[in-house]
């Protein structure tokens, strides 16, 4: 089987937050029917593309359906009454989403800090060794673990180089490379048509491009617009959102 596992393709909370943000939904008033419908469609799409669907997504789908069922029951029971917030079956999920989003925001802050601070480089090698008797020296990182780590990093580095070589033969381009290409394209053109973009691509390249765009959209790197089901997809710059 040909299974794709998307790296850092985050969990179901991300997907829900994406829907909420895209449709400018009030988080305390999620249209659960629409959202769960879309969520299921998304899982179908993942299955269609043979992306490994993590069990968390299935669990979330079940949760959404359960909430929906509870809301249906409530609808029958209290048709006339105004629903109170406290026993809204959506509330626990909403709280989880907010809790998660909070850390997502703080992680963006961290990323920003790292970005700002990355140009402070530390001093590495310093010659004091020649002035010392080597036999007195104890290197604090001289452990089997650090030897193993060193070997590991050689293996990783070399495998990466070899992996790149392999890919040239089978896949002309990786998702990561595609992402870079698309980002550049969006920066240059600010919007472009998916169908136009893929017109001369091989099948595998189309799939890779599609996955790359999906991933970028989920990471808020760009915006995708589709007027109607099966229409062309327009890829747009996301700059105005930040």
């Amino acid at each position, binding site marked *: 089987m040909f299974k794709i596992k998307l790296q850092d393709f985050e969990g179901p*909370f991300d997907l829900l937050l994406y829907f909420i943000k895209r449709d400018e939904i009030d988080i305390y008033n999620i249209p659960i029917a629409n959202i*769960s419908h879309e969520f299921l469609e998304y899982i179908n799409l993942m299955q269609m593309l043979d992306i490994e669907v993590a069990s968390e997504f299935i669990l979330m789908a079940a949760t959404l359906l359960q909430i929906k069922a509870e809301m249906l029951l409530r609808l029958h029971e209290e048709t006339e009454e105004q629903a109170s917030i406290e026993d809204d079956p959506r509330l626990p999920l909403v709280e989880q989403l*907010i809790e998660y*989003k909070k850390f997502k925001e703080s992680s963006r802050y961290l990323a920003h800090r790292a970005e700002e601070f990355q140009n402070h480089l*530390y001093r590495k090698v*310093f010659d004091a060794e020649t002035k010392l008797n080597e036999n007195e020296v104890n290197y604090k990182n001289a452990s089997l673990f650090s030897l193993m780590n060193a070997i590991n990093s050689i293996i990783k580095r070399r495998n990466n180089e070899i992996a790149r070589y392999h890919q040239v033969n089978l896949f002309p381009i990786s998702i990561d490379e595609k992402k870079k290409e698309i980002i550049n394209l969006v920066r240059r053109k600010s919007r472009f048509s998916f169908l136009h973009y893929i017109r001369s691509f091989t099948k595998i390249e189309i799939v890779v491009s599609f996955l790359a765009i999906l991933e970028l959209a989920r990471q808020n790197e760009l915006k995708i617009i589709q007027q109607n089901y099966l229409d062309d997809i327009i890829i747009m710059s996301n700059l105005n959102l930040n």
Partner: protein
Amino acid sequence: MENSFFKLDFETQKAIIETLIFVSDEQLTDDSIYNIIINLDKETTPLEHSNSEDYHNFLTLLNEIIIKINDELDKSNRPYQIIRIANGWQFATRQEYGRIVRYYYKSKQVRRLSNAALEILSIIAYRQPITKPEIELIRGVNSSETVNSLLEKNLIKISGRKSVLGRPLEYSTTDEFLKLFGLNSLDELPEITEFEELVRRELQQDENDITLDVSQDVIEQVEAKIDGLELN
């Protein structure tokens, strides 16, 4: 002040401090600098000094010295200076030269953390010590691989075990973490409630009007969907 360090002239004191910080490949805390300096004369390691008058005077002097060093480094256009990081002092390049050099070292890419890694780091930063199941509860997704890779990168560490069933490992952030994000201590992180407000503002359109959104034809659709689902 019995210690002879205090009897030295300022220039020599400065050179000693600068040497110590320059030689060290990690940040040096006030404590460790104090210990080294005290030990220069005595062979024993002093403990319980942190409240002593000597220690207090030393801190004042140390700050004075580092300000002076940085001032001199600045005036002589050195591309590095001493910064306060992870509760200690360390030489680091100035931003502008770091940028240039990173550009030159194309092969040595700065590690970029994945979104997942950043999320987990921020959860651990605010909630430490925290177990993996607790992290996964917040993220809603399995996080083992990323936690392991953060351990490997030395950005988090195992800091204990939680006294609940199964005694799961607890994780905390490291000094490496502080250094990566240019923090002197965890206190420098913004309050998590600030982000909460941000999120609420962003995701809440109208807090007063809460209605159920399920109409009759949706009900039918849903039921059809649930039927379909059971078939799978």
